[in-house]
């Protein structure tokens, strides 16, 4: 039996989180942790509670019970603004883009750059957007059209740019490659490796077991709102993980 390979203070520790909607326990006393430079996969069927759990961290929901610790200190996250204060950035499955605004406006939404007198500095924001998009997606040219006019991959890169630009320490990615083609999926995988090297901690919600095996260090599996177990991805086969997801069967390596 092996345990958590990390030691020291975790970047994020969600302890004993529960949340229910109308009598249904969506998340039932679940604990997860995340260390710097680590990718932790969150797996489970649709409705297993992984998105709900992670929304407690991003501030979209408030847990009924349980505590969240960031760098060992208790954190109060009551809304998305609080989460951003702790350098938690989220890439939502829905991307959460305002379709009628352009890429720069979306990237800086809620954190606009302002010039003299507190007025928006659109030129500066567009210049910064051009810079970061040049790094993430060099083919991106559509800076002056609403994001509704962009392709799925382009929209995804705007959402990713938004999370990366503001020096996130903790990144939450909810199925980041679900809507992407193979080339763009590869791009996201490379980006995750790059961010990992920079010491970010990443929660990755993912259905594709191959992506999990390739990208994640550890994987936490949930079923019916409860935690089945956690495995070090290098020590198990994909069948082991599938067994956890489908049958809730805990392999001996799990903890």
């Amino acid at each position, binding site marked *: 039996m092996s345990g958590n390979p990390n030691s020291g203070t975790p970047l994020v520790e969600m302890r004993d989180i529960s949340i229910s909607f109308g009598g249904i326990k969506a998340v039932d006393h679940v604990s997860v942790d995340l260390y710097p430079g680590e990718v932790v996969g969150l797996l489970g069927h649709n409705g297993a509670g992984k998105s709900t759990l992670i929304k407690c961290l991003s501030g979209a929901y408030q847990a009924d019970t349980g505590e969240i610790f960031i760098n060992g200190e208790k954190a109060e996250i009551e809304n998305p*603004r609080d989460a*951003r204060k702790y350098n938690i950035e989220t890439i939502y499955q829905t991307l*959460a883009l*305002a*379709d009628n605004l352009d890429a720069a*406006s979306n990237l800086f939404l809620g954190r606009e750059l302002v010039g003299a007198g507190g007025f*928006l500095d659109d*030129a500066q924001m*567009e210049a910064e957007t051009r810079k970061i998009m040049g790094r993430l997606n060099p083919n991106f040219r559509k800076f002056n059209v*609403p994001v509704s006019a962009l392709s799925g991959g382009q929209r995804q890169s705007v959402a990713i740019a938004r999370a990366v630009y503001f020096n996130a320490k903790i990144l939450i990615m909810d199925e980041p490659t679900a809507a992407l083609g193979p080339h763009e999926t590869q791009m996201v995988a490379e980006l995750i490796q790059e961010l990992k090297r920079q010491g970010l901690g990443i929660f990755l919600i993912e259905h594709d077991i191959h992506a999990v095996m390739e990208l994640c260090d550890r994987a936490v599996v949930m079923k019916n709102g409860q935690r089945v177990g956690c495995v070090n991805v290098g020590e198990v086969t994909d069948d082991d993980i599938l067994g956890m997801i489908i049958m809730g069967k805990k392999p001996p390596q799990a903890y």
Partner: protein
Amino acid sequence: MTQTTTSSSASGPKLGPLGRFLKATEIDTRLLGMVGALVAIWVGFHLYGLLVNGTGVFLTPRNLWNLSVQTASIGIMACGMVLVIITRHIDLSVGSLLGFTAMIMGITQVWVLPQWFGLGHPLIWVVTSIVGLILGTIVGGFHGWLVAYRGIPAFIVTLGGLLVWRGAAFLVARGETISPVDSTFALIGGGPYGSIGATGSWIVGLLACAGILWMIVHGRKQRRKFEFPLRPLWAEYTLAILGCGLVIGAVLVVNAYPWPRGIVAQYAEANGIEVPPEGLFISHGFAIPVLILAVVGIVMTFVMTRTRFGRYVMAIGGNPDAAELAGIDTRWMTVKIFALMGFLTGLSAIVASARLNSATNSLGALDELYVIAAAVIGGTSLAGGVGTIYGAIIGAFVMQSLKTGMVLIGFDAAMQDIVVGLVLVLAVYVDKLYRSRTK
């Protein structure tokens, strides 16, 4: 009419490669379409009058000046309605709130303040206006609070407001009409004395031209600084000429409308001026309510495009969930948007009651429909996320032009309602076609 001839002659020679022209100048085709529709309405009514009644009266300085004054009240409120509709709400209460606010201001300046300050005291109009603006803001903010924090749909809150405030407007003075208002206050409504005259209009016009030129030069500098693509120089010059031409044209029109003979005689006598036998030509110039509308339009455009508040309004309209997740306090924003709508309704109440020189409980009846129609004709989408201030102001001019034009050519009230209703539906249909084509 000078302004439209200026615009058509400036763009005329380049009409061949129209697409290239529009691309280079970055003029919105929607804007062009709305201005085109407005000009068509104006010319149409003028020609109809000319052919059927023998005299075209629409395109005269006098009518255009009146049109501008009549548009002010609706136009001011339409600027706020754009924000409400962009964020997927609606405000049906503005007409009633206008009536209620006007009644309270009427009572304040006619029954209350003269007892404290004495009749005609220069502070009366100031205090009255502040009372109106604050009252409008509070009521609007209260509507917004009910919508945002109590989860009642805006349609219901403001439908209730439509009834409540109209009733309240009756109750506060038991249905009496309060008249006349304070003489300084009345100037805000326009009229010969409530206009800034020829010299003042030229000063305003030249300032506006200077502003247009500064914007073009500054914009070019910004683009160069960040190495964004520049507009070709000829396009910049065209825009400058177009913009300044419109402003100067407007000045020429309002200055071509003289004071009526009776007012001139009264004014001459009061100031000891000899009136020559051929009469004195004293220009109206821009009316004060029109200047108020212009300032509201400029400030609101600035708010929408250059401030966080405006950006958040657009974001909430485009995707409320995304706005919330981006850390925007969408509920507090809703309160602020409705409070702003209330403030502008208060301002509009000042203009409307000053123009009428009285406050009646029916003031502003049906205004909500004209205001919403102005915003929608101006391209504000009821689905949310889309709309402009200039569009709403042009929309207000379209609505008022239709009303005025039909009165001038002698349509009766029933026919007017039918035409306005049809135009509203048609405008939204055309807008929908335009959007699905450009998508």
